[in-house]
């Protein structure tokens, strides 16, 4: 919290001249196909990350669907250009806004990133940023800096090992990763180089700051503010600074945007085809303000209204504030009319009618639910209500 608020005022003013005039010196530090050098610490890092990757490969939370993976792989490869073969991309089921990269080229993209994007270009912007971390060897530099800081005797809480004399027996790699957060300087480097990669791959460079304005809008809409929104945001410059300096940088370098951003068919297809999978985890976060902001974004970019309305119904119904029941009924009703609604729309509509003591309509909706979904695992519950008195 403190960390995120600290330098709001200064950063982009301070860095701007540097950004505008010095960034041409910023270039990749490694060639495509990079392999670790003989250096002991680099070899060690690679070993840990390879072990992590072995486990990640088998994670039950990986999205293994080909169309989704191809979509993300395609973006990575286009932004990465000649570095494409350096990366293995893992799409992970997680509603947070995050992507991450290790020194070995193991890249994780969370489904929460796709859910929040207004365009493929915005996803590409985050990916470009991560690729820049890789080609600038930021992991290794971070590790070396950490080592030297510790040697200077800073109070260090790798904790148990030092305090109790017992070393950490398991999960070293994750613990290590937690300490390998990039610093602000590296973040700014990655922002700039990432934006250039984005533009060179013919994605819209203006997406690089739009993604941050999107995140700011979500934070503003949130009922419960985050202490941190995941590694990506926690250790990075705050969103306002970042959106500000990136906007100046991009407009200075590439000119103002021609037209208002419009969503591309690629992203729309992905959202339309996988909407339930992608939004289900977001709904489970119980963060209604954020979910609502995301749904409004989806409406604006043209995701199938039948799908979006279903989740509007879910969100209003679960939030349960004054007037939410009516809003939920309206949203479910629109969703049901589109024929894109999952069967649960009928069921939850039924429960809403039940709550409103509208038993006849409740039963109609419940019957419809069982008619569409005769194998429903909660059939016994529904039949319990169908058998209740009145009819």
């Amino acid at each position, binding site marked *: 919290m403190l960390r995120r608020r600290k330098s709001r005022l200064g950063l982009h003013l301070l860095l701007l001249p540097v950004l505008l005039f010095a960034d041409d010196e910023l270039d990749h530090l490694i060639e495509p196909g990079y392999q670790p050098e003989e250096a002991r610490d680099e070899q060690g890092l690679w070993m840990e990350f390879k072990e992590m990757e072995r486990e990640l490969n088998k*994670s*039950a*939370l990986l999205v293994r669907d080909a169309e989704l993976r191809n979509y993300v792989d395609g973006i990575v490869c286009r932004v990465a250009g000649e570095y494409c073969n350096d990366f293995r991309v893992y799409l992970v*089921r*997680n*509603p*947070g806004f995050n992507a991450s990269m290790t020194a070995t080229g193991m890249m994780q993209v*969370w489904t*929460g990133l796709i859910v929040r994007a207004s365009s493929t270009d915005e996803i590409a912007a985050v990916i470009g940023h991560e690729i820049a971390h890789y080609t600038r060897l930021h992991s290794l530099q971070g590790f070396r800096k950490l080592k030297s800081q510790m040697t200077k005797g800073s109070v260090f*809480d790798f*904790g*148990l090992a030092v*305090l*109790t004399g017992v070393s950490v027996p398991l*999960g070293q790699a*994750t613990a290590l990763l937690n300490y390998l957060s990039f610093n602000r300087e590296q973040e700014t480097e990655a922002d700039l180089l990432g934006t250039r990669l984005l533009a060179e791959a013919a994605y819209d460079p203006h997406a690089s700051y739009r993604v941050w304005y999107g995140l700011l809008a979500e934070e503003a809409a949130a*009922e*419960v*503010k*985050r*202490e941190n929104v*995941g590694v990506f945001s926690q250790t990075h410059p705050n969103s306002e600074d970042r959106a500000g300096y990136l906007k100046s940088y991009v407009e200075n370098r590439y000119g103002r945007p021609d037209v208002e951003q419009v969503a591309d068919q690629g992203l729309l297809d992905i959202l339309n085809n996988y909407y339930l999978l992608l939004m289900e*985890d977001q709904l*489970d*976060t*119980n*963060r209604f303000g954020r979910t609502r902001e995301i749904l409004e974004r989806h409406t604006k970019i043209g995701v199938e209204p039948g799908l979006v309305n279903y989740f509007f119904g879910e969100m209003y*119904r*679960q939030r*349960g504030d004054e007037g939410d029941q009516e809003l939920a009924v309206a949203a479910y009703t629109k969703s049901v009319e589109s024929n894109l609604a999952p069967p649960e729309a009928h*069921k*939850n509509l039924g*429960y809403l009618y*039940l*709550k409103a003591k509208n038993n006849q309509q409740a039963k109609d909706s419940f019957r419809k639910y069982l008619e569409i979904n005769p194998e429903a*695992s*909660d059939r*016994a*519950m529904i039949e*319990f209500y169908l058998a209740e008195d009145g009819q």
Partner: protein
Amino acid sequence: MKCKRIAMLAIIASLSGCATGYSLVAAGPVAVQDLGVQADAGWNRAPAMHTPSARKGAETWTKDGMLLDRLVIAPAIPDGQPIMVSRNKSAALPVFRKDMLPNELEELVESSIVKLFGEGSAVVSTSNLRPHRYGEITGIRFDLEVTVTDSPAYRGTVGAFVGTDNLYLMFFLGAEPHYYDKHIAAASAIIGSARL
């Protein structure tokens, strides 16, 4: 950071010994506040130190150790309260409302279990929602599956009912493979036996 603090506390606790130990749950009728259940033999009641997310008055029982199986019995959760506690103010825990219908109770538990394992670290799905009679009161039962990043998967079952505007909630989680199968019958019987 917080985890480490908890871990440190647990170490200190385990070093200091007795007050934090597990105790045997006597077989037969057991009262957890105003909720009565019929326990079989072999359950260990976890000390509060090992159950940081449990509400005051709730109990957590295990047969083989809490990483492998656990039965949580949370009585008398009042309107407007979450089913577990968190020191993390930004956790956004869902709360119980006394007018909740079965689908809403199911969602309440699903979202809470996600938070129990860590938002983003687990995907929880529910199935087989069905009515269940707890004495005079009609409540619900349903089943759970939890997929976790860094541990075995868990399967479980849940029982809940609303009595005098309070929620009475019991859930069992067992590691997969083996521990769910090993204890589901016993856990299910206890949940089914709950009475006010």
